[in-house]
């Protein structure tokens, strides 16, 4: 079975500006993948390339092994929400879905189902111009779900949602993936997706930074170990001799790049008594900042 999504040396230029450069990654079914990067990293462009809304300058963007335009009844394979504003303000929520129902090859009853699913039944007959950003997001999601797709592609879906809405979205996406379906969700805020995603694809300046399972990523990047010793000066000297850097913070030392075990060994060899050793695992935010940091110029 081909990967659900596959970027192959994907490059997109807009005139002088290169939005995506030589991007390659695959996505397997049944996962929630966070597509992360700062604003302007090329996330939306990449999604548009996958969805056939833009043509790659070079390389290929494949969905279920094929270019999007070659999918039969794409609405029943892929659901996507790119911008919450992709709605006609003068049309009601229900009519927005009724317009799309024939091309999604679903009956009108399905419109009512998805309205109920995103909790918009009460506002369905109001014109979209009176909707909050969160309601627009939910209406966009309802449209994406019309055809009961196997893959959801969502661009910054948490924008405009209140904390309750974010929690609802998280539970919904987990449930969606638990049925063996696949979610590809972009965000520039890690905290938003940290509890939702199984794996991450991080890009910056249109280039792949890392593609990894979430837990592997946090494990791979060693955290900081905070050590308190009876004689901090002696410990700092011993660490320096072992080639380990540490920062002094009052009586404590913040040690980077080594495990607590190794610090214990160094302290033992130097005859320093340790009072407290705490491993501070990195937050996803730290990982993100570290990976997308500009190289010093």
């Amino acid at each position, binding site marked *: 079975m081909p990967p659900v999504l596959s970027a192959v040396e994907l490059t997109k230029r807009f005139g002088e500006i290169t939005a995506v450069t030589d991007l390659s990654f695959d996505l397997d079914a049944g996962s929630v993948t966070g597509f992360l990067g700062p604003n302007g990293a090329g996330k939306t462009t990449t999604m*548009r390339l996958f*969805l*056939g*809304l*833009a*043509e790659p300058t070079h390389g290929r963007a494949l969905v279920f092994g094929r270019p*999007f*335009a070659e*999918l039969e009844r*794409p*609405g029943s394979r*892929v659901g*996507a929400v*790119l*911008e919450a*504003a*992709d*709605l*006609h*303000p*003068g*049309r*009601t929520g229900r*009519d*927005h879905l*009724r*317009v*799309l*129902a*024939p*091309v*999604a*090859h679903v009956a009108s009853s399905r419109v009512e189902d998805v309205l109920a699913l995103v909790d918009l039944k009460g506002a369905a007959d109001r014109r979209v111009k009176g909707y909050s950003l969160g309601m627009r997001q939910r209406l966009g999601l309802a*449209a994406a779900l019309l*055809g009961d797709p196997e893959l959801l592609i969502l661009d910054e879906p948490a924008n405009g949602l209140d904390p309750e809405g974010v929690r609802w979205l998280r539970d919904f996406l987990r449930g969606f993936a638990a049925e063996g379906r696949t979610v590809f969700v972009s965000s520039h805020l890690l905290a938003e997706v940290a509890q939702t995603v199984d794996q991450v694809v991080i890009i910056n300046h249109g280039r792949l930074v890392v593609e990894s399972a979430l837990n592997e990523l946090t494990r791979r990047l060693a955290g900081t170990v905070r050590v308190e010793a009876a004689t901090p000066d002696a410990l700092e000297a011993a660490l320096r001799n072992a080639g380990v850097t540490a920062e002094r913070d009052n009586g404590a030392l913040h040690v980077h790049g080594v495990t607590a075990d190794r610090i214990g060994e160094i302290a033992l060899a130097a005859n320093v008594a340790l009072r407290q050793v705490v491993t501070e695992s990195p937050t996803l935010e730290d990982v993100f900042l570290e990976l997308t940091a500009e190289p010093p110029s």
Partner: protein
Amino acid sequence: MREQLVSELRKLRTTRTVAVFLLVAVGLTLLGAFAEGLSPTLDELAEEDQQRMLIGGAATQAIFLATFVGLLAVTNEFRYGTIRPTLLFEPRRRVVLAAKLAAAALVGILFAVVCVALAFGAGLAILAARDVDLALTGGHALVLVCGPVAASALSAMLGVTVGALIRNQVGAIVALAAYSLAVESVLFLTFPAVGRLLPGQAGNALAGLPDEDLLAPGLGAAVVVAWTLAFVAAAVARTERSDV
């Protein structure tokens, strides 16, 4: 294709655009009928050409406004971004364009049927009120019924292609209005031999307007169809290639 057409027709039904434009067309048709029916003297009104202006001239409002409905059917999608959901469910852009052309043509026919019926009703009522006999021959009457319907359908399709080519709503409206109300009229008045070959004047010929400088209705039809085909070809080329 059938599903896409149903979707396009629902798009047109679920906003107020079509209703508002139809209402304007109805108003302008009635206004035109009163102007052409009440200002001429009784002798003038008894002439067939004046009666053709009374009925046919009023119906041209349908054609003009149907063009804008076609234009808005495309530019609204770009203005509000609904083109993205549209293409996610039907990525074959040719199919979407064809459905939009068909839906716009149907709206054009609706506009023309309503306006022609109104123009005939108002025209005949004015003639009766002023006690003038109907001087229309059967052939001219037939052209005044069928011509605007065909011209309005083709104009709405032309509007779709202009929208697909320009995309920016304000730009497309300004371009179309400036062209129809200024460029083409001036050209037609100064160089009728050239001006009558332009789509708007060829459409007026097809609609059966009595003007010596216009082409014959059949020739006008051929010229409008040729323009429409050329614009459809250009719109297909632009739609197939560009990013949205």
